[in-house]
């Protein structure tokens, strides 16, 4: 006989899981008990939401689904924000929750929550396990669904009696067969032909790189398309990191908080090739206008994204890596020289904002300096708020990654995501940039960092404000500030020291750069506190 809990652990082992993030509780104890017999490493987080964020950082850094575990009731509901964050950014996660005894379901017993019901809008799929015999199939399907097609989080809710019940033998299925799930991979040949034709006819073509390019691992294919056609390119926030800032076709991030050259090019293009971009309102605020002005080629693995926010003239459903590969191979025409020169002039005329200051740490110039100091394959996680905009517009991703919560905009993402990223890629430099607001949403994870001796560098931009909301209050609510002053901040340096984490305060750019250099050269975790001007805008 083999117990449900043991099957769960064996399923994870069969999926090659070597590490998971979790927080135990009574309803998941049988699983934890078996986990102790396994070589799978368990990282105890300090709050369940951060287990999901850490799994997200892990998944995004190594390309395999991240795994997080929580108990029933509050453990499970705490996971929700993390799962919703992953869902919006299409990050593959398998979340396992304990559940009360299946015979007591629906009776509102201690720590019972209908988590599959609650997570319905935030998961790609979910399972409530009713029979231990089903576990191998469900785990196999969950990992398959999470990581194929458009990736996303999958939840498996396992009642405690199912974990305790036994079945005769364990056999892990080799294949999945879900009749309603067969993601399309190859783009339609005719549509690809039409796209190539449109690209050669366009006077002002523009490529927009979205998060789908990152998820599909299509960097090489996109860069070769850019090189061959010289078509200028922009990126959404989720697509950052694919094209290095110094690529001469590249104009930076579009959107409400993007760079001017990128937005200018988008306003003037007569053909926009959307690659794995879902046309979110922060990236493209007037999709109808764009659709009227330019022909749209929309490439996405998720058919539902095509035509959702913008009408596509040439829709291509398929794996972006394969589609871009085909386009790069078949495209022959070079973008018109006049257009190339026009956008290069925009790029030349653009002077990034922010100069080093003596009175405060000026964050934009500091991020640029930091970017120059970090290793080429470093991973930066950016939190949410003004600090996110400072980071994403000024950090130059070379061979590494930039991880941030783009879709849901979840504050507190950076620290746990950095933990996950570092555990996935222990040899890479990992830096988290947070604001004082967002840092305080997950700073309990400093404990996780200490317990596991995880060498990540944290930069906290302290302005004593919820700066992003304050900007909204300034622009749209007559400057009436409410709820956006962060009085009661702790002394972050002493806080870090209380955890035994070396830390220092920088009061101007010179100090910040000096400390950053010191921080990056050490092999231990470090928390760098930067005092930022409270009145500084995000762009």
């Amino acid at each position: 006989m083999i117990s449900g809990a043991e099957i769960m652990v064996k399923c994870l082992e069969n999926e090659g899981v070597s590490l998971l993030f979790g927080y135990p509780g009574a309803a998941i104890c049988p699983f934890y008990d078996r986990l102790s017999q396994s070589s799978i490493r368990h990282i105890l987080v300090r709050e369940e939401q951060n287990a999901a964020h850490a799994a997200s950082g892990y998944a995004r850094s190594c390309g395999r689904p991240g795994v997080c575990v929580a108990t029933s009731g509050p453990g499970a509901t705490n996971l929700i924000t993390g799962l919703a964050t992953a869902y919006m950014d299409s990050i593959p996660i398998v979340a396992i929750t304990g559940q009360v005894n299946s015979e007591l379901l629906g009776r509102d017993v201690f720590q019972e929550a209908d988590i599959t019901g609650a997570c319905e809008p935030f998961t790609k799929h979910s399972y409530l396990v009713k029979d231990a015999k089903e576990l191998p199939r469900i785990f196999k399907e969950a990992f398959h669904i999470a990581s194929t097609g458009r990736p996303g989080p999958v939840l498996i809710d396992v009642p405690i009696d199912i974990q305790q019940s036994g079945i005769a033998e364990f056999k892990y299925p080799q294949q999945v067969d879900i009749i309603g799930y067969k993601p399309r991979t190859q783009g339609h040949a005719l549509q690809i032909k039409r796209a190539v034709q449109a690209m050669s006819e366009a006077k002002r073509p523009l490529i927009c790189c979205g998060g789908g390019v990152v998820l599909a691992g299509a960097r090489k294919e996109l860069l070769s398309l850019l090189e061959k056609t010289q078509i200028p390119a922009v990126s959404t926030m989720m697509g950052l990191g694919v094209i290095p800032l110094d690529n001469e076709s590249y104009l930076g991030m579009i959107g409400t908080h993007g760079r001017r050259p990128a937005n200018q090019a988008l306003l003037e293009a007569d053909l926009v090739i959307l690659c794995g971009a879902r046309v979110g309102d922060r990236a493209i605020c007037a999709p109808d206008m764009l659709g009227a002005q330019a022909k749209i080629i929309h490439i996405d693995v998720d058919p539902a994204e095509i035509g959702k926010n913008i009408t596509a003239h040439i829709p291509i459903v398929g794996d972006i890596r394969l589609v871009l590969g085909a386009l790069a191979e078949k495209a022959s025409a070079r973008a018109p020289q006049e257009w190339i020169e026009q956008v290069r002039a925009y790029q030349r005329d653009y002077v990034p904002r922010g100069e080093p200051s003596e009175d405060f740490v000026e964050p934009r110039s500091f991020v640029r300096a930091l970017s120059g100091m970090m290793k080429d394959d470093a991973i930066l996680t950016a939190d949410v708020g003004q600090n996110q905009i400072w980071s994403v517009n000024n950090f130059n991703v070379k061979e590494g990654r930039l991880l941030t919560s783009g879709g849901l905009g979840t504050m507190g993402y950076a620290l746990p995501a950095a933990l996950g990223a570092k555990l996935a890629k222990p040899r890479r430099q990992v830096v988290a940039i947070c604001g004082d607001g967002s840092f305080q949403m997950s700073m309990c994870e400093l404990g996780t960092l200490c317990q596991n001796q995880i060498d990540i560098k944290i930069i906290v931009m302290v302005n004593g404000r919820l700066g992003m909301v304050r900007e909204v209050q300034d622009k749209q609510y007559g400057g009436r500030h409410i709820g956006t002053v962060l009085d009661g901040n702790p002394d972050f340096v002493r806080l870090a020291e209380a955890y035994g984490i070396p830390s220092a305060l920088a009061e101007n750019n010179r100090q910040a750069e000096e400390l950053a250099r010191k921080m990056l050269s050490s092999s231990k975790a470090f928390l760098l506190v930067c005092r930022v001007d409270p009145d500084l805008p995000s762009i």
Partner: protein
Amino acid sequence: MKYTLSVLVENQPGVLSKVSGLFARRGFNIDSLAVGVTEDSRISRMTIVVNGDEHLVEQVEKQLNKLIPVIKVKVLAGDFISSELSLVKVSCTPQYRPEIIQIADLLGARVVDVSLSSMTLQFSDTAQKTETLFALLKPYGIKEIARTGTLAIERGPGVTRKQNA
């Protein structure tokens, strides 16, 4: 405009809530939804009638297809048979019985229950014809209506999903 969707789903618990939840959170309005098992007991058919434009129905179709237990979605266009079953209880004293029976005969409804003060008709036809029946019965006083929602199937040999496909 009204669109009729024929949706094949895995016959398992929770699927109805996944589908209805999707309609609620994406802001799609359901006119009617009817579910029942098909010739294959592992598969159920949902017939969903939605009101909207072409763009909306395209999104409904694509979003439904994203749900893992959804096997096949077909927007029925052109020639299909649609029908719904309804039961309607009308206030009816004995003196009005002949009139109501006449209306029933005219439209092909069946009297399934009679009391001293009421008469219940069973009717099975398109949503449009059903409305006609109700309009004719209204002057007598409709006490209660129960409807199944529209069921639909393509005319001719065409099917929503081929066997072994």
